[in-house]
């Protein structure tokens, strides 16, 4: 093999790489915050919500969980304009992330809600709280705490999955790698470096989620 690895170009394309990383981080930040919020709402509907709404949410969750993220993205970016909904690359990517993580996290959170001891609901009720107040103030936080490790893993999976948004020309980290590859024809170095960055981001994201958990769950409450 007479290929010479060269990483000197990294400096030249430094701005592209940084921009790519920033967009990937932005995507997962929005995806995680809005996606988990959507997941909480959907989990509430499926576990405790009005009966007529349950099948609607169930259909959404099943549809998303059983189709590739790439196709969801294409459908949103290429398909929705024919319904008159024109989105920019970044808007489409953000929406796809939220919709995707919303479905996955709702299933995880629902499992946490269902593991709540019945006495917690009864204690809330006996204190004159409505079912929703009981969910909001009594059930939700311990439920999230119970499933936080699984939820964190899912967020990391979705972050790694975000690499495909480059396919609708959202300028994330993978887009930067592709761009550099097409300019320099140094495919291996470009993908090697961006893969390493993704690995680093995944490790960092785990730490951040661990810290968030440490902040919002004051105590060992899972039982």
């Amino acid at each position, binding site marked *: 093999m007479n290929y010479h690895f060269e990483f000197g170009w990294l400096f030249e394309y430094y701005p592209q790489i940084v921009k790519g990383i920033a967009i990937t981080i932005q995507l997962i930040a929005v995806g995680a915050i809005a996606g988990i919020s959507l997941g909480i709402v959907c989990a509430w509907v499926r576990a405790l919500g009005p009966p007529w709404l349950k099948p609607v949410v169930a259909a959404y969750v099943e549809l998303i969980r059983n189709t590739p993220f790439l196709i969801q993205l294409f459908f949103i970016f290429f398909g929705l304009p024919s319904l008159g909904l024109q989105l920019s690359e970044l808007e489409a990517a953000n929406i796809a992330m939220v919709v995707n993580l919303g479905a996955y996290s709702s299933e995880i959170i629902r499992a946490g809600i269902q593991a709540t001891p019945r*006495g917690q609901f009864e204690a809330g009720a*006996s204190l*004159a709280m409505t079912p929703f107040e009981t969910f909001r103030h009594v059930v939700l936080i311990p439920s999230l*705490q119970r499933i936080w490790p699984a939820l964190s893993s899912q967020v990391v999976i979705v972050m790694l999955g975000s690499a495909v948004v480059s396919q609708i020309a959202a300028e994330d980290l993978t887009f930067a790698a592709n761009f550099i590859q097409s300019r320099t024809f140094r495919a291996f170095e470009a993908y090697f470096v961006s893969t390493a960055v993704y690995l680093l981001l995944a490790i960092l994201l785990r730490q951040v989620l661990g810290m968030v958990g440490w902040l919002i769950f004051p105590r060992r*409450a899972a039982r």
Partner: protein
Amino acid sequence: MSLIEITDVRKSFGDNEVLKGIDLDVAPGEVIAIIGKSGSGKSTLLRCINGLETISKGSISVAGAQLLDDEAHLKALRLKVGMIFQQFNLFPHLTVGGNVMLSQMVVKKTPKPKAEAMARKMLERVGLSQKFDAYPDELSGGQQQRVAIARALAMQPIALLCDEITSALDPELVAEVLAVVRELAAEGMTLLMVTHEMKFARDVCSRVVFMHQGRVHEIGAPEEVFANPRTPELKQFLGVH
């Protein structure tokens, strides 16, 4: 005038009729012990009074508030009646103070400083003012149950329902919880308690209700019921021959 009026209450789970027509009137300040074998329906009766179970037939009212199966009526009723559970059911993610303050703030919209003052007062009453910032899993079972009592009291109910509140406790912790209940009784709180503590029932209660197979089988003052059980079922239950 009765505070709690229970009229011909029936409750079925599927084909199984657990309550077969219960009539019971409770006057203000009365302390009533409900005794009986497991499966006699005593816990179900208590849970019906707080709307945790919906009744199949009959009516229950507390200080004029009817038990009806909609959110507004349930809320009105539960604001008048507090409940203490066998398993304490404290909220594990909140401190002791947080547990006692939560429903005041959420349900009654009490501002935080007022809710906190009330919580401290109620914790003082059950002898746990120094545990305000502790979490439930740092407390003994007896302490947790006393917090649960403070939590119910903070809503200023006019009656308390106690569902076997000492049954999950280690024997040496029972006394501290019963002491709190005894004090509440002395202060004139209306109490309905399902209990296995016969000595306590004899000492503190104004009336004893013996339930058997979903009915009120015997009822009367404790000295009567314990000293002169009339029916063979009660005799057997009390172990007198």
